[in-house]
């Protein structure tokens, strides 16, 4: 609603909308036709899954103000739920997605319960309980991985209405469609009536309580929705990108990665998740290419990895110092500059 008082009849095609439509057309039509296999496998598939995870966390942290350090665990819940639903129930794809996200939402609510009493760092640390407990659970109980000897399971090929999502392009399109639909939903959510609830709880919990915003319900709903979205991100991560599922892939480092995506991209913005995920996916690739070029392959893989870690860590610190509102606000400034230049000519 954004309470656009006297909502002036906006033109259907603003510049921003045109840009988004062009981007979608490129993503849906251009990429499958022209992008190299490497671009899809190494960049776009992880980008889509991580963007969605970043989006889910942003809903919780950026909008509702509750910091979570356990996002990867909810990705794992989504992935294992989808695996077991496909394996044991054989439900069609949309229902698999629905139930996997519902499972993640339910687990999210359970681990969100401490937020009703805890704040700030106390809450952040308590979300680590989700990270360690769930990772342990999937490791320890063979049932989740169908008693696979190695603990690593290969994700079955998804299929629906006669289409199997086996080829690279079809997996890409499945991920893209999912991410697009969920992003539209979240866009409507955070610009609708829920916006007031979320931001009121984030900005001033006491005032929110006194004016009758249902603080506890808002927090739990934020945990549920955020976990559901991150759960779907986990499904995409393991079914369309890696095509394997293992608990190690959803460790604490992954949780931090998702947090960084949300922060570097810009909290409480939707495009921030995409910008942040783009950076996190592309940056290491650039670094390893760059170091290969500079050192002419003289750097061993281990050192490259350590260097990546250092540079990434430093980038985060630099961002926090210089651009606390993330890539999203840089984009804002750039478009404003471009517009004023275009307006002048």
């Amino acid at each position: 609603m954004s309470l656009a008082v006297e909502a002036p009849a906006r033109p259907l095609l603003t510049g921003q909308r045109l840009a988004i439509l062009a981007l979608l057309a490129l993503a849906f039509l251009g990429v499958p036709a022209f992008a190299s296999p490497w671009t899809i496998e190494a960049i776009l598939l992880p980008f889509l899954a991580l963007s969605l995870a970043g989006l889910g966390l942003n809903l919780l942290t950026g909008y509702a103000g509750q910091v979570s350090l356990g996002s990867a665990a909810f990705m794992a819940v989504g992935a294992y739920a989808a695996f077991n639903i496909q394996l044991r129930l054989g439900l069609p794809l949309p229902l698999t997605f629905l139930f996997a996200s519902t499972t993640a939402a339910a687990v999210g609510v359970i681990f969100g319960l401490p937020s009703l009493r805890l704040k700030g760092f106390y809450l952040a640390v308590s979300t680590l309980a989700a990270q360690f407990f769930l990772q342990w659970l999937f490791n320890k109980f063979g049932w989740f991985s169908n008693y696979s000897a190695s603990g690593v399971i290969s994700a079955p090929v998804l299929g629906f209405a006669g289409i199997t999502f086996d080829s690279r392009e079809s997996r890409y399109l499945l991920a893209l469609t999912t991410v697009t639909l969920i992003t539209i939903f979240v866009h409507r959510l955070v610009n609708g009536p829920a916006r007031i609830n979320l931001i009121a709880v984030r900005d001033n919990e006491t005032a929110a309580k006194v004016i009758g915003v249902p603080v506890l319900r808002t927090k739990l709903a934020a945990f549920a929705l955020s976990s559901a979205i991150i759960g779907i991100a986990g499904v995409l991560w393991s079914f369309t990108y890696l095509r394997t599922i293992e608990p190690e892939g959803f460790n604490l480092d992954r949780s931090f990665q998702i947090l960084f995506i949300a922060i570097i991209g810009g909290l409480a913005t939707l495009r921030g998740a995409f910008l942040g995920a783009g950076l996190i996916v592309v940056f290491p690739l650039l670094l390893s290419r760059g170091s290969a070029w500079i050192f002419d392959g003289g750097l061993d893989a281990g050192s490259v990895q350590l260097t990546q870690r250092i540079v990434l860590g430093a980038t985060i610190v630099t961002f926090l110092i210089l651009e606390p509102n993330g890539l999203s606000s840089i984009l804002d400034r750039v478009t404003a500059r471009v517009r004023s230049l275009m307006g002048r000519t």
Partner: protein
Amino acid sequence: MDWYEFLFVIEVAVGGLLSGVMYSLVAIGFVLIYKTSGVLNFAQGAMVLFAALTFVSLVERGVPFALALVITLLIMGLLGLAIERTVLRPLANRSPMTLFMATLGLAWVIEGGAQLIWGTQVHALDLGISNAPFEIGGIFISNFDLVAAALALALVVVLTSFFRFTRTGLSFRAVADDTFAAIAIGLKLNRIQAAVWTAAGVVALVAGLLWGARLGVQFSLSLVVLKALPVLVLGGFDSVPGAIVAGLIIGASEKLAEVYLGPYVGGGIEGWFAYVVALAVLLIRPQGLFGRKITERF
């Protein structure tokens, strides 16, 4: 329960208490910084790794034990100063959460840096403390754990008396209690912060040496933060005594749970059990056992 079983329970509990002191040791590094800067310094674990790795690498390169200790101390002090200057100062007046995220990034830089400089292989660290268990009244206690606990307690005593009885220590507390007032009466905030980060570096060194001697000096040393976090939450982020008591509680309950609960669920519960204990307590006391009660003003 017969007598031997009872002795076994005691033995497990004592072992847990002693390893709990080791948790407290890491937690105290956090508390020092939290009290003065209001930052939950996630990089504390990376500092522990960095300290231990620097020390052990120096010793391996033939530097005498005492000299290596002094050099490492100096390096940790410099590291603390550098962090204060390059990360904290530019982020002054920003939200505690922003500072926390910055220390997450910092942790990656320090971890990566430590391993890039000194290599990623595992180093054994021998502090010359015998690891042989000895017996008191039918209970076996690890000699190493006892010495480690004693060292940790000594450190706590030193820190506490520093805060109580020295001028600098008292100004620490003034800053912790009321930053604005402290500035108003002319305390040099930057210098105090720098001193605190240096002190945290020293604590990291002690923790790194003890933990390193037990686990080997390697990357996983930086993960001791994950052991310290539930201790912090339980004890309250701003309380040194809290960190100790919580460390003891978590150490003992974790070991007991491992022995008596672990077999029923397939073991490996030490990764999360401490968090569950901390959470259970927090639901009753949201500010931790010893944390300052937050009285909000409206």
